[in-house]
């Protein structure tokens, strides 16, 4: 209900905070619009004038290279003026509140915030607090959501597999701490995916994970059977020190994706990863660089998807 914060009175995208609450038609529209931007990277002039004169601020309260870069490129290709700020080391360390940071930037006539923050709910909070003409795009908040990542994953899947209704998808790894997994699950469910499995030890699964609409497996070999799409998740080093796992090597032995394990899935299964990858921890190099891997394709698609979402969220400002 409150997710309507993301839509204006005509049901158009205003903020992009979470996949939850967005209808299938809107997700499909995002994928279609992104499709129209795909070729732009190959043109001599890699720009369209859709957001000329608009100011976009990338507010990164948490470190990120890849996501920030693709957002910057996407905004540039839409001809917007872009300012990127890494705030983790500047204002908040001086005691400035999140709200004060936002208010200060608002006063500089900004049209859009792209926000990454380490706390769940930060993007919602900013969207609630900003002036009505400003759009907020969630570039990852805590363990809650990373909806642009999920949409670029959906885009990549659709490019290769065309239709979601016959697909069996496995998401493997640290579901508990993953905002990516939460958004992927919501997007896959909204788009009508036949089956979603999460594969992880219990320590890396949130309570009542089935309530998200997934099947659960603690065994990679059994879980990979008949799978069309394998979505790996990054394993953070600190999971070892907080007693969630005994060691990287044991994790790799149980849940690492190797060529042998990959053979259990369907022969035409694709392997995805949101990056950055930990070779030899969650995925073997031979798989990451192998013919079934679409990891770099995901990165390229990230620009088109972010262009689509930014353009659509700004569109509402016309009327």
């Amino acid at each position: 209900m409150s997710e309507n914060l993301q839509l204006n009175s005509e049901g158009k995208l205003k903020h992009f905070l979470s996949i939850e609450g967005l209808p299938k038609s809107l997700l499909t529209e995002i994928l279609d619009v992104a499709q129209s931007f795909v070729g732009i990277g190959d043109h001599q002039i890699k720009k369209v004038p859709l957001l000329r004169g608009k100011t976009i601020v990338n507010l990164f309260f948490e470190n990120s290279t890849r996501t920030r870069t693709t957002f910057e490129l996407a905004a540039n290709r839409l001809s917007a003026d872009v300012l990127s700020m890494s705030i983790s080391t500047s204002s908040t360390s001086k005691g400035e509140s999140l709200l004060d940071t936002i208010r200060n930037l608002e006063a500089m006539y900004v049209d859009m915030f792209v926000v990454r923050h380490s706390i769940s709910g930060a993007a919602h909070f900013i969207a609630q607090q900003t002036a009505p003409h400003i759009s907020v795009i969630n570039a990852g908040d805590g363990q809650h959501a990373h909806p642009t990542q999920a949409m670029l994953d959906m885009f990549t899947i659709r490019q290769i597999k065309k239709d979601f209704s016959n697909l069996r998808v496995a998401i493997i790894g640290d579901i508990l701490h993953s905002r990516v997994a939460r958004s992927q699950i919501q997007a896959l469910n909204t788009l009508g995916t036949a089956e979603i499995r999460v594969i992880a030890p219990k320590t890396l699964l949130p309570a009542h994970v089935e309530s998200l609409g997934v099947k659960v497996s603690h065994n990679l070999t059994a879980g990979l059977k008949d799978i069309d799409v394998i979505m790996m998740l990054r394993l953070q080093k600190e999971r070892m020190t907080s007693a969630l796992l005994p060691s990287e090597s044991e994790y790799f032995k149980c849940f690492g994706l190797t060529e042998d394990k990959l053979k259990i899935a369907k022969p035409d299964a694709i392997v995805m990863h949101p990056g950055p990858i930990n070779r030899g921890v969650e995925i073997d190099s031979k798989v990451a660089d192998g013919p079934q891997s679409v990891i770099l394709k995901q990165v390229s698609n990230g620009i088109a998807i972010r262009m689509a979402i930014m353009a659509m969220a700004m569109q509402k400002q016309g009327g």
Partner: protein
Amino acid sequence: MSQIHIKQGHIVDPVNNINRVGCVYIADGKIISVTREPAGFKPDTIIDAQHKIVCPGFVDLSTRLREPGQSRKATFKSETAAAANGGVTTMCLQPDTSPVIDTPAVAELIKELAKNADYPQIYPIAALTQKLEGTELSAMLTLKQAGCMAVGNANQPVRNLLILRRAMEYAASHDMLVMFRPNDYWLGNNGCAHEGAVATRYGLPSIPEAAETIALAQCLELVELTGCRVHFGQLSCKRSVIKIHQAKKYGLHVSADVAVHQLHLTENDIIPFDSNYHVLPPLRTEADRQYLRQGLASGTINSICSDHQPHDKDAKLGAFPETEPGVSSVETLLPLMLKLVAQRIITLEQGIASLSGNPARVLRIKSGALTVGFAADVCVFDPELDWQVNADNWKSQGVNTPFWGQTFKGRVTQTLQAGNIIHCLEKSG
């Protein structure tokens, strides 16, 4: 001193088994008679209580008034006015003030602040351990002599069970009540929401029921070992209710309360990230809420507290996990209790007992009843009066309530504390 005649109200006094229309007579701050007019009674104040309910003033087992230390959030003046507006005549103050209530000086400061606010019936709960750190015992006897009714460690768990055992033994030696909010520090894992479907969906750091039930089970074992009198505060889940029920059946002398919002709200209310629903212990599932209600109805839980925690606006402005937990709740205590009566979960007598006689019995104080000779702590309320939770009707400095803007049935019209009229609702047209 003055004589007050509360006239023709519907008196509900569960302790004295009174439930009928009649008058209450007060002189020199004390109840001198109920229903029968004393000879030579010449009231200088008459309170017309026709169509109203006259009951003992409420005894609130858990409040925070933010002084000393956080007067930007609230003050004794603002919060005692709020309490009076809510029919509360006795408040227990949690020890996590700044400085902590672990020395007689702080206890005396609180008594002084209460006196200056013209609301003397505030009982500080002394810290169970120094600075609430869970390592060294507080000077409980000295604190008792300085007016502390009980000891407790507020929201700070005592991580070392040997320290908890000794603290309970020492409290028992001085016949002090321990007020214990069961909460295992490690299992709580700095969470902010119930470990369930909602926290999973929104990626919120979560607290399992086991954080409460394991701490509760450990403390129950220590009750048996030490013979300490323990009251468990702010229970939040089904299995806690079951554990208290079993402990009582087994013969342990323990009691328990629930914060009023736990009887009405669930984890679903926080969706997506509404910080007004950020409370500790967290709002749990519908099944937990039902069990808490049943526990109240069956008497396993004998008291309802407000767990009043007023905040400034900034405290609730932020991403959900970063906001401060707590609800400003003393003014919605009565209508939320009455809602349970309207829903036939409990009877009116049970509801009033859970707000007055039962918590008074937990504290062993002469209040919570209209007994002749007791201080005249009285609440008069109109059970049919509708009112909206808004700035006109609100006295607390904290407006952090999920019920803001809602209309409730049942409003306190007069509150008397030891015979002083500390609240009188202005007649509105």
